[in-house]
């Protein structure tokens, strides 16, 4: 396990805060309502702990899986509880007549939310590294957390065993919604991040 100092974790947390701020602005514009986003914590951990942090036993959730390309490449997974996903769909109002998780349009709207959140965090990381990252088309998952979280995390960790977890809280229409974003970097991206963190050690 690659150890990082409290100070380096602060830097990752700060990057996450920038991502959360940008995501909130873009989500407000997309949904036409005030959206805020906070970041209770960030953690760099190994696969097993990553699975535990993201999983919610016996609960059904929604996952948006997006591969990142560019120099900050890797796999990402954004998760919401089913209730949170439905609340987000409600916030779209008249824009979205059918708010069922089975509707193609509702799924597409949630994938766009995933694009925005993941893209905002990826941009914050890539700007910190002075390099590039962009999202590829998302995959929509609606299943028990136990059925998809670990398989996505493990398949994303082909090159390193490390997972960067951002614990986020979305505030939509006055309600706080739990959401997690996991980034499983490629070896190249992981080394880029670690080198930069080493270089910024005070």
């Amino acid at each position: 396990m690659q150890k990082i100092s409290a100070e380096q974790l602060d830097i990752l947390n700060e990057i996450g805060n920038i991502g959360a701020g940008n995501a909130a602005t873009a989500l407000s514009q997309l949904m036409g309502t005030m959206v805020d986003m906070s970041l209770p914590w960030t953690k760099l951990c190994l696969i097993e702990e990553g699975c535990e942090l993201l999983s919610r036993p016996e609960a059904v959730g929604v996952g948006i899986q997006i591969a990142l390309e560019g120099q900050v490449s890797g796999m990402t997974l954004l998760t919401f509880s089913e209730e949170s996903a439905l609340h987000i769909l409600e916030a779209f109002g008249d824009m979205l007549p059918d708010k069922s998780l089975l509707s193609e349009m509702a799924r597409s709207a949630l994938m766009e939310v995933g694009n925005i959140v993941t893209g905002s965090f990826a941009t914050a990381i890539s700007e910190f590294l002075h390099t590039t990252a962009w999202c590829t088309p998302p995959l929509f998952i609606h299943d028990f957390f136990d059925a998809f979280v670990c398989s996505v995390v493990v398949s994303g960790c082909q090159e390193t065993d490390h997972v960067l977890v951002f614990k986020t809280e979305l505030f939509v229409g006055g309600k706080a919604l739990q959401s997690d974003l996991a980034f499983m970097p490629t070896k190249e991206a992981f080394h880029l991040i670690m080198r930069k963190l080493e270089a910024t050690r005070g």
Partner: protein
Amino acid sequence: MGKKILVVDDAAFMRMMLSDHLTKAGFEVIGHAENGAVAVTKYKELRPDMVTMDITMPEMDGIQAVKEIKKFDPTARIVMCSAMGQQHMVMEAIQAGARDFIVKPFDVARVVQAVTKALA
């Protein structure tokens, strides 16, 4: 009659939103495409006045689709729809012949301005 527009995006929700903005602004959305390959086929079939083109799509991406459409019709008017982190792709699309770009999530005024300018 409003100018005819082909909306290309792999996300059904974004096609719906963009079509809604354009229709309300007086344009006529004559077709949708969910990837670059379908966009090229529909361009040839529908001959729109203008295309809004997403960048990241499965099958064929928006940049390749711009190149194919420009090969078929060098006068084609295309506005790119980009997401965060895609500045370098926007540049490549502009070099391939796209006229302008709009950034997601869409701001209605900016969409109308870019499309109007590209049609001028």
